[in-house]
């Protein structure tokens, strides 16, 4: 493998962003096991072309992401393909936690806890992205089953320490990550932890 362009450990609860060049890879490593990594992606040259959960699901015919999944924009344009996934299932439905939605899910006592939308806004601003640019995101390592009744919820994760997911970029892709700080549900095993990010060139 080439020398990576980026090889960093993202602290617990922190954001990260960076451009993955066309033909290059982004690898996320769940260092401590069952750490949700919220993820958005945009065409680097035109951020109005952005990852679409719905378009991605429609083209692949299912709601879970794993090896072979193509992450597409709302125009159907491929941004990234999941080249290798060691977990087997990642979430497209649950979205990002926020201070505002926390008040609905758990109560107003959570209003001032840190949340993924805060990370997305703060980190996104470095690239000129604002509130309008946030759409339904991926949650790597998060387990959100849908039962036959329609019941949907974030449950105990199926990942483990060291499991990696690797994406290959079709074009220059701006990626925006929130290392989820949520402590009110099992998405981080009730203990947000660091993750490792590796970016390679083509």
């Amino acid at each position, binding site marked *: 493998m080439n020398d990576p362009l980026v090889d960093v450990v993202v602290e617990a609860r922190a954001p990260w962003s960076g451009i993955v060049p066309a033909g290059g890879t982004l690898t996320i490593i769940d260092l401590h096991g069952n750490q949700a990594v919220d993820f958005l992606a945009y065409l680097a040259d035109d951020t109005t072309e952005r990852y679409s959960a719905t378009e991605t*699901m429609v083209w692949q015919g299912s709601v879970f992401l794993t090896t072979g999944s193509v992450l597409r924009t709302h125009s159907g344009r491929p941004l990234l393909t999941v080249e290798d996934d060691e977990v087997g299932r990642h979430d497209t439905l649950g979205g990002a936690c926020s201070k505002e939605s926390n008040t609905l899910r758990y109560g107003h006592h959570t209003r001032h806890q840190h949340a993924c939308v805060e990370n997305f806004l703060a980190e996104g601003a470095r690239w000129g992205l604002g509130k309008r640019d946030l*759409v339904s995101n991926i949650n790597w390592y998060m387990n959100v089953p849908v039962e*036959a009744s*329609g019941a949907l919820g974030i449950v105990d994760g199926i990942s483990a320490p060291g499991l990696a997911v690797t994406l290959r970029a079709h074009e220059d892709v701006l990626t925006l990550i929130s290392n989820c700080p949520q402590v009110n549900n099992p998405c981080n095993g009730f203990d947000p932890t660091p993750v490792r990010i590796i970016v390679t060139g083509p």
Partner: protein
Amino acid sequence: MTGPTAPPGHDTPSGTSTPEGARAHARSQAGTVVEHMPTVPARAYAPVPEGIDVDALVWAERVAGGGYTHRVVGAGTTLRLTDLEGDACAHLLLYRADRPWERLNVADTVKVQWNAYLGVGQLLLSDQGRVLASIVADSDGHHDTLCGTSSRLRNEERYGSGAAQGPSPAGRELFLLAAAKHGLGPADVPPSISFFQGVRVEPDTGALMWEGAAPAPSHVELRAELDLLVLIANTAHPVDPRETWSCSTLEVLAWSGAPTAPDQWPATASPEAARAFANNAEDLVVRSFR
């Protein structure tokens, strides 16, 4: 009037070779009734479903398959969407009317309510912890939160065309037009929901399973809980398995009313719903400076 002599047959007042003639021709079209049009004023609409007070109607429109419509409605308005013939698919986006950066958030809608599917009593939530609209009636429950609307590329691949003005319009193309008329751009069009064509998830594999339409006519009623900008695109669902594009007439009716009170269903349906309506109330009281 001076000028070149008009050819025979074109120099009468009803001819369109003069401005007066063209005006007469245009005005002679008044009163034309077609299947797909808004009825203005809405109280002139017919036939009206049983139980609906025609004099209370503020919006009455029939949207063809492949068409779109949009309006700003006040809090408390009930919006009734009806699949008249069994093949409509109403794609919906909602925004706070005076602050459209607060808009429908489908991920929050499903996860806050612990439910992937829409039905009576479900709330359509914004990204700010508030209720935009509540589903107060639903005849058949075949709806979709998962697939969004169709894209131009996919419609071109499947049907040969996805342009808004073509024979098989993509929902996103229609939404972009509707949004633009309210000063909104591509970044303002997030994933949408749709009514009248059901999709479910196979629990073990996560596969999308097509349910299709309920027998016609079927309807949903949405109560606007805040002043809303409503965008509606009526076009084939993106996962519709049929080889040719197909979509039938959508009826849109609306009448004024009051938003849900804190002690009224569906605010009482769950603890999450109660907090969402409480957040609404807080926001409205503060902003009215009472």
